[in-house]
């Protein structure tokens, strides 16, 4: 019961937004630019099989592989930078630099290397998502209490122990912040990746519809994409709450 009541507000806001949208769409009467929610819903129903069975799995696959690599890479980098000043000094600027390059400029290079396989799309996703994970985890690792670290050292703890017992728990809240941003970005990452060349996927489908002046067709796959993204986000939040249980008892 209480759970349901919690979501009332978000539901009300959602309805307000949808009604407003419907009204605006009805007024400007340009379905090809701004389709109304009902248009989109109808399109969604019409295309449900194609979207859910064909394009959704393709995109989800890119996102999951991309996020997986990002987490490994991001956390790995954060740990290396945390444990060695040299690595930090060397890589930090490079990591930032990697973020400043618009992915589209790199597209031909990715394709040169990976062709039109899934990997060029995964690479785009990784490039976009590993950064918030790296930065947040790295900042989180530095947030560990010095007093606790010292105490562990006096117990004969190795660097590794201190790391696992103090830095890691202290970094968890930061890591989750980063992961939440990354999950969200991964959806756009996959969509952009698909624009670089694809045969299937929700981003591909949406872009294709754009050339057809089919506004509802552009938005329908995006709704599916968003729904998937929100689901992933909620999953991360759930894991966060499970992992950081002790917070509640404070």
């Amino acid at each position: 019961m209480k759970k349901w009541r919690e979501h009332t507000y978000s539901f009300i806001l959602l309805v307000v937004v949808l009604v407003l949208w419907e009204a605006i769409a009805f007024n400007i009467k340009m379905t090809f630019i701004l389709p109304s929610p009902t248009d989109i819903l109808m399109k969604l129903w019409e295309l449900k099989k194609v979207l859910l069975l064909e394009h959704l799995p393709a995109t989800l696959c890119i996102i999951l592989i991309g996020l997986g690599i990002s987490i490994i890479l991001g956390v790995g980098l954060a740990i290396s930078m945390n444990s060695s000043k040299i690595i930090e000094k060397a890589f930090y600027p490079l990591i930032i630099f990697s973020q400043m390059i618009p992915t589209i400029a790199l597209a031909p290079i990715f394709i040169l290397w990976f062709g039109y396989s899934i990997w060029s799309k995964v690479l785009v996703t990784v490039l976009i998502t590993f950064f918030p994970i790296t930065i947040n985890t790295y900042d989180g690792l530095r947030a560990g209490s010095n007093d606790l670290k010292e105490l562990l050292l006096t117990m004969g703890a190795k660097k590794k122990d201190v790391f696992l017992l103090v830095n890691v728990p202290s970094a968890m809240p930061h890591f989750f912040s980063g992961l939440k941003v990354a999950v969200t970005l991964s959806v756009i990452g996959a969509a952009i990746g698909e624009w670089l060349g694809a045969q299937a996927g929700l981003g591909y489908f949406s872009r294709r519809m754009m050339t057809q002046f089919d506004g509802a067709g552009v938005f329908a796959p995006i709704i599916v994409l968003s729904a998937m993204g929100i689901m992933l986000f909620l999953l991360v939040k759930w894991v966060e709450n499970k992992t950081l249980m002790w917070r509640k008892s404070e």
Partner: protein
Amino acid sequence: MIKTVLHFDSVSFRYPKQEKGPLIYDSMKFTVREGEFVSILGPSGAGKSTLFRLITGLEQPTGGKILLNGEYFSNRLGHVGYMPQQDLLMPWRTIWENAALPLQIKGSKQADMRISVEELLKEFGLGGHEDRYPAELSGGMRQRVSFLRTILTGSQVLLLDEPFSALDAITRLSMQEWLLKQWEKRKKTILFITHDVNEALFLSERIFVLTDPPVSRMEDIPVPLDRPRTLKALDIPEIMVLKDRLIDQLRTKATT
């Protein structure tokens, strides 16, 4: 011959951040032998906790050498059991997990740990609280967990920084008795910071008295009492005189 456990050889120290500030220790010398129970008294801010940080190896002397068991290590970390003044429990670990920390670091098996930790928790009046988080405990309970954690390091040398300051007289007494028993049975060497002159007299064989920094020599006062001691023994005239002398000593040090 009795082994020397700890030897300060003209040790000087100042905190690196206070580069221009005064020294806290200025070529200080002292020795602690195996199996001794030494209490350390001194005014607040004198450098008692700093002494422990030097011994554990968390700080390095600015000058001089610190010998452990007659040997000089440049890295002394992990050789002694240290109970810091603040309880420093990890908020994300339960009481049980906090206490078991040193065992975990040593790589003990879960099962072995369970038994020894739980037994001690019960003995310290913390039975039934194993699975609670530190934030749900009273100050004295947290202090006992911290003490327990230090004991579980299993070190032969224990540095205890005001371990019982948050305990009521009765709990404190039982903890003191427990500590003495351990000390006698296991031949531990104990350095014990306290502000309670009675506690120092009741527990220790020698008392070091620190002055305000910079400290170059600690007053070294033997306690003329046999074991086992009772609280009543502190009321005999000889000890009363000693107590007054100690308090006077602290007073003059604090005002000069």
